[in-house]
């Protein structure tokens, strides 16, 4: 079976670990648990042409205390940029990481994941801002599971096609 490594990038507390947890184990916890270093998970996804083993590298969130080492991205076939829709600054962090990642590993498939759709009444992002982004955008909720599976599968499909 084909194996593809993907990375989860984004600021702290945006829900990277929750998305992976929802995708791999179908569970969600409201309790925030910060990640140090990398947490590696694996899940197979069924595509039309073939099954793909996704090796998901859930990287620690970037802030002033923990900078992301781009060496983590080596060998990555694609990545998800995760944003917390209720915190506008996390979009800036994601876009900064996107630029750094492109510099480190070149252009690979990427999707911008706007997480926490279940908290839509408290969103700090408007549609106009989202429309300006120059990569595929998907809105998810790790809490309810909305579009989580589809997001990972879509990335796997794009990576396999490339």
């Amino acid at each position, binding site marked *: 079976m084909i194996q593809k490594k993907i990375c989860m990038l984004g600021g702290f*507390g945006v829900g990277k670990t929750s998305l992976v947890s929802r995708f791999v184990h179908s569970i969600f916890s409201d309790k925030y648990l*910060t990640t*140090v*270093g990398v947490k*590696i998970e694996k899940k197979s996804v069924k595509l039309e042409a073939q099954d793909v083993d996704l*090796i998901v590298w859930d990287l620690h969130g970037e802030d002033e*205390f923990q900078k992301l080492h781009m*060496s983590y991205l080596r*060998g990555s076939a694609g990545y998800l940029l995760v944003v917390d829709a*209720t915190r506008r600054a996390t979009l800036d962090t994601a876009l900064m990481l996107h630029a750094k990642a492109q510099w480190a590993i070149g252009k690979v498939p990427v999707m911008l994941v706007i997480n926490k759709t279940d908290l839509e009444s408290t969103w700090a992002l408007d549609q106009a801002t989202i429309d300006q982004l120059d990569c595929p955008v998907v809105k998810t909720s790790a809490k309810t599971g909305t579009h989580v599976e589809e997001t990972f599968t879509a990335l796997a499909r794009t990576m396999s096609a490339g």
Partner: protein
Amino acid sequence: MSDDLLKALMSGLGIAAFERRADGSFAMVAPVPTWFQRLLGDGTFPFLGHILDEAGRFWNKGEPMLREWGPCAEVDEVGRQFHYKVSAVTMTGRHYLIFQLDPGADRLQAMLQKVRERELATEQEAATAAKAAPSMQVVRETAEEFRALLKQWPSPTSTDPLLELRMALSLKSDELIRRLDAFARQSAAH
């Protein structure tokens, strides 16, 4: 040191060690500690990804050195998180892959957890305050109008049956404005 003692020591220290054979496969040097059993799989460690590639290049140099990667986070069977690091070692011409618990990363995680929880709470309070600000302003203006209306009432006399009620209303409107101002100052401080 005898082989048995070395194996017991490694197991006691929570170290999982593998020798890399010439064909690229890994042979267990000592029984793996309990924490590592979930990671062992078929012993090829595909989850390590580029770390294995980099370790391979390091071993091929043949220099007696050590190279480390990590920390990596994992959860035990009861869902508790722990961290480990991965090392590639070359010793007397033989190559080893070592997995070791990383208590330093556990401590860092505990510290960052507190800092980030506080930061998230502060951000949330500020967002709530910013969202409430326009409504608070309307309430404040209404309270001021109410106080102004009270002042337009003819001067009270000591026999006025509504004197107590008027004083209570005046005090309440003052208190409301004071509270709104205090809330606004608190929000600005965030």
